[in-house]
């Protein structure tokens, strides 16, 4: 999978390049809009990460030109502006998704996976990890054949963690995808932490092999973090 990163801030560009490289993506970095435009036209990429605040030709302009030329590659826009107008403008011009800076790296990875997966419908009815079994249809959860009683939110979190098994899930991802809340606020973070703690009590406490781990400062991971 080849990803083009168009980002002028060299520190951010290097972090993105290293992080994505560690996830076994092939990364090219362009530091200006013109360079990005040139690379997209001369090489083929599976995904473009586009910063909107670029010197010279702005990200939105590059995006509009690319889409006008019929480029189909998914584009994930990175922006420090988070007003609704900015988002709508970006999506109108052909961005497939956007992420507001500062973002959590696990969330970026999740979005990239989602964009690359798009179109492929993977209907899964059952999820499992080790001796943990989750039936998405009957919403029954068992561990080592023992049934677990989960609340609706706990179930949703567990399902989300299982779908991202082995990868870190940030609080932002849980807030947006499980609680459907975009604005981050202190109460929600506490709610997330408490709910995860309760989920752990049910899923992990009775067993010696712990499945849900906290990654300090980043979020949570189910199973061993893959790296």
């Amino acid at each position, binding site marked *: 999978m080849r990803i083009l990163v168009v980002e002028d801030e060299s520190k951010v560009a290097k972090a993105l390049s290293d992080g994505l490289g560690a996830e076994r993506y092939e990364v090219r970095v362009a530091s200006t809009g013109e360079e990005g435009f040139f690379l997209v036209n001369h090489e083929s990429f599976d995904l473009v990460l586009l910063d909107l605040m670029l010197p010279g030709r702005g990200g939105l302009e590059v995006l509009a030109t690319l889409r006008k030329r019929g480029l189909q590659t998914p584009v994930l826009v990175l922006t420090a502006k988070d*007003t609704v107008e900015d988002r709508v403008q970006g999506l109108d011009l052909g961005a497939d998704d956007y992420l507001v800076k*500062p973002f959590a790296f696990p969330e970026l990875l999740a979005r990239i996976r989602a964009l690359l997966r798009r179109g492929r419908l993977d209907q899964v009815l059952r999820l499992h990890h080790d001796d943990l079994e989750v039936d998405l249809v009957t919403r029954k959860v068992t561990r080592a054949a023992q049934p677990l009683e989960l609340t609706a*939110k706990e179930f949703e979190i567990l399902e989300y963690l299982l779908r991202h098994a082995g990868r870190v899930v940030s*609080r932002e991802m849980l807030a947006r995808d499980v*609680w459907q809340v975009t*604005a*981050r*606020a*202190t*109460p*929600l*973070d*506490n*709610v997330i932490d*408490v*709910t995860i703690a*309760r989920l752990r009590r049910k899923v992990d406490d009775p067993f010696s092999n712990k499945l849900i781990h906290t*990654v*300090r*400062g*980043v979020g949570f991971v189910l199973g061993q973090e893959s790296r």
Partner: protein
Amino acid sequence: MTLRPRSVRTRLTLWHAGVLAAVVCAFSGAIFFFVRVQLYRDLDAQLGHDLATVERTYREDPTDLREAESRAGIGLFEVVGDGAVLYRTDAWAQAGFEHAARDHREAAPFSWSTPGGKPYRLQTLASPAPGIRISVAKDESAVRRTLRILGLILALGIPCAVALAIAGGHFLAGRVLAPVGAMAERARRITVESLDARLPVEDPGDEFGRLAGVFNETLARLQDSFERLRRFTADASHELRTPLTAIRSVGEVALQGSLDPPAYREVIGSMLEEVERLTRLVESLLTLTRADSGRLRPAREIVDLGALAGSAAEHLRVLAEEKEQVLSVDAGAVVRAECDPAMVRRGIVNLVDNAIRYTPAGGAIRLTVRVLASGEAAVEVSDNGPGIAPVHQARIFERFYRVDSDRSKSSGGTGLGLAIARSVVAANGGRIELESAEGRGSLFRVVLPAG
């Protein structure tokens, strides 16, 4: 375009002088007219008297007319009968009245000047007897002179009076307006550094006193908002510096020695936690800034407030359960409000979170949705926690304001929750009221326009 002098003093003076000039002119005109009428009436009365004397004399004995001239002192008259002069005094003949008397046939007195310019008053009595006409004249020069002198006095007096009016008006306007100048001078010297200065109020009852009072109130509000801004800036920089300091020192200390990978992960994780805190803080501040600048535009719709309160309570129920608190929602009949549900929900969530945070374990938090007597819709968030002392109640919605800094640190809030709640509710045309007594819990009431 109107010509408008820039100084109020000049305008007042001109108005003053203008009005006075008009009054003096009208008054002088009236006096002149009255005196003139009076003088001529006297003259005409004498004329009439003379005419009657001549007529009586003629009727009694026409030959006595010469005697009437000498005895009664009537020097100017003539009696004409059928075109022939029956009697004419010498003075009459000299003055050349024959033309004047012949031209004027009416009975009323009239003025006539000789070709030499001497003014006379004449009256003619036609046919006291058939074919007889009697004319009498009197010298009018004295009347004319009196009127001329009066006119001269008035013509010279009016400009003097107007000049006096201008000078007096200018002086008076200056005196009246002097406090304005003094106030302007004082106000000019008030700067951001000396916002505590106030204008002197000599008499709070008069116009200038009220103006100074209003100005002082404005100054007080300005001073208050400057003070809050200063405090907010100091608080914000403190809140922003704390995580930055932590990140920096944790990183620097970690670089001093060589650690094993798990220890580095710990260090980086700790730094990321602070980054998280900073991010949340910046986002909260941005929300408040948007609300301040009016960019927080609510998408209003008719909302079932009971359902909204219920969803906010459910959202935080786990937190209350962790503290073994009872969180209940009391929504009877459907209460509708017109507001942006996401924004108002955020406000209610912040209030409930605040209640859970400061109510001790085992307490009770109650959400009541109802219609107020005023017809407005309301959500009340009440708790049986420690309550808020009156000194803190007015300031509890201020940014970063904390009733007890130690307690808040351990409870982990940003100190912006209530400020945000108030901002989002205000942006929806509502308000938050607080009722609290120390030791008897608090009640926050979100009041919204009914839908």
